[in-house]
């Protein structure tokens, strides 16, 4: 790849300009949501539409701080707690599991691997009703716990399948050297292998978080009270009640995107690795 010639001056320019145009077209929906959240209601309904806010209006954000039924910052907090909870469960369970699958050839290994693969393909619809009954019986219905437990089921199989490749790529000699230094299997795993597989662990944590953050079905079905629902369910509720209050709705959307944007800005390299290794290698 690296030996391939870089494009020269003029061609480079043309391609770069085309790429900017593509970028603008594809990210336009995001831009539009952002500027709509900063416009006044009056300006939103103006015809022809304005392509940047002529009067900067921060009321849509400020109004949310002053409580009200749809406090987006509370929903944001709920989402945060739920997503962190799901991420912690997913990482704690998936790290040892992927190590076991990558490094040992025990009976039933293939079956377990296959079952993780299959759960990745499951539609939420299959799990919703039975989980609903289960959480009611466990008395966790209408709490964060229900959403955390459900969201972790998305992160675990994904993380196992990704991390398995990371662990498999660590040479056996390294592990054996650790045994010579007096480690047993568990301490070698904790002190030698996990630190080496750290980038993989980060990828898993990021994706488990993103999956939980984006979840709507579980949060909406297993949590009834708006005060405990995640922000995605908050947006959905809000749309039903104030269908055309676009400045508020888009402000909600922008706040929801903030953590995603931060993850993207600071951890971009992990995202590419997660998207590709998870999908292609299974």
């Amino acid at each position, binding site marked *: 790849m690296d030996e391939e010639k870089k494009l020269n001056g003029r061609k480079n320019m043309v391609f*770069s300009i085309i790429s900017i145009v593509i970028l603008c077209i594809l990210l336009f929906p995001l831009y539009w949501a952002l500027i709509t959240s900063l416009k006044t209601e009056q300006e939103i309904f103006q015809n022809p539409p304005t392509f940047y806010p002529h009067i900067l209006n921060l009321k849509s954000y400020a109004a949310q701080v002053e409580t009200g039924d749809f406090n987006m910052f509370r929903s944001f907090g709920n989402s945060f707690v739920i997503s962190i909870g799901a991420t912690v469960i997913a990482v704690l369970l998936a790290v040892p599991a992927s190590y076991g699958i990558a490094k040992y050839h025990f009976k039933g290994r293939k079956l377990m691997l296959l079952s993780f693969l299959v759960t990745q393909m499951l539609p939420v619809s299959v799990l919703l*009703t*039975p989980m609903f009954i289960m959480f009611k019986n466990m008395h966790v219905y209408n709490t964060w716990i229900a959403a955390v437990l459900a969201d972790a089921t998305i992160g675990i199989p994904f993380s196992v399948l990704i991390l398995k490749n990371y662990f498999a790529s660590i040479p056996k000699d390294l592990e054996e050297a650790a045994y010579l230094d007096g480690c047993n299997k568990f301490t070698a795993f904790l002190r030698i292998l996990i630190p080496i597989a750290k980038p993989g662990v980060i990828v898993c944590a990021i994706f488990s978080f993103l999956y939980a953050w984006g979840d*709507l079905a579980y949060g909406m079905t297993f949590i009834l009270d708006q005060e405990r629902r995640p922000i*995605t369910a908050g947006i959905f509720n809000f749309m039903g009640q104030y269908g055309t209050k676009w400045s508020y709705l888009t402000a909600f959307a922008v706040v929801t995107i903030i953590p995603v944007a931060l993850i993207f800005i600071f951890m971009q390299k992990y995202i590419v690795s997660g998207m590709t290794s998870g999908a292609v290698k299974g």
Partner: protein
Amino acid sequence: MFCAAALFSIMPAVKYAAGGWYKVAHGACYTLKGEAFMKKIKKMFRYENVGMLFVLPAFVYMLVFVGYPIIRNIILSFQDVNAGNLVRGTKNFILFDNYLELFQDDVFRTSLFNTLRYTVMCLVFQFVIGFILALFFSKRFTLAKPVRGILLVPWMIPVTVTALMFKLLFATDIGVINYILRSLHLTGKNIEWLTTPGTAMFALVCANIWIGIPFNMILISTGLTTIPKELYESASIDGANRIQTFFSITLPLLKPTIESVLILGFIYTFKVYDLVYVMTSGGPVNSTHMLSTYSYKLSFEMFKYSKGSAVANVLLVILMIVGIFYIKATTAGEEE
């Protein structure tokens, strides 16, 4: 009180009996097949099987929160469960009645057809656009890598937000899409995208393609980097033009990537839920219901849990059939 007292008086006897059994069992192991037993124990803790201990917690978790629900869902679909007897009460088995009723149900047939139509349309466009973008960004210009990176953002955004953004774009009065069409004189009056049956589906497909493009692009990009450059060099020495090179080198060598992109794309698109639920909720007049949204509606809006489960199972069966291809494709290259 009496019961408790009785229990206490029996306790020593129970203990004794249990102890007796324990001794008998213990003795049997060591006298009759003691050696075989020890071997078995040793075998259980053989090096390789220790690995199972690492996997077990995650596996058990998935068994409880995914495996059990799947089975429960299948059982549910053969029963008659509604709001009255969901948590408690007797659940009558009505076997295949739910499924038979479904196939007479117009909305179910529409949603099955919709899901297929929607999936195929999304797949075609997101794959072609993703492919073109991947080829474009495989050229080495200054902005190639950073711009391609930023293009991944649509894939990461919560689908609920995407749905909201496209609802805004396709809005009747203030939507930018209507504005553009009006400016180009393609339409005289505003189109009611989301409240007209045919156009609502179009809006959904557009939103889904937007989410799918980055996924297709990045996977194909990665696939492209695995093709050895020497092949292209020798092709150009042989005098092949770009189109010939594309069809005789790029496409055949990308086959495994293309397979997994399409199969995964099918699975992800076919089980679509959030996007449709937020944008149209299956409306107008049930014209955009997918299997997943119809299942949700039956279960959680009409409280016909069993029927909802039956719809979900139809969805599951179709996904599993496609999934078999995926598993075959991904495990083909595995070690062992």
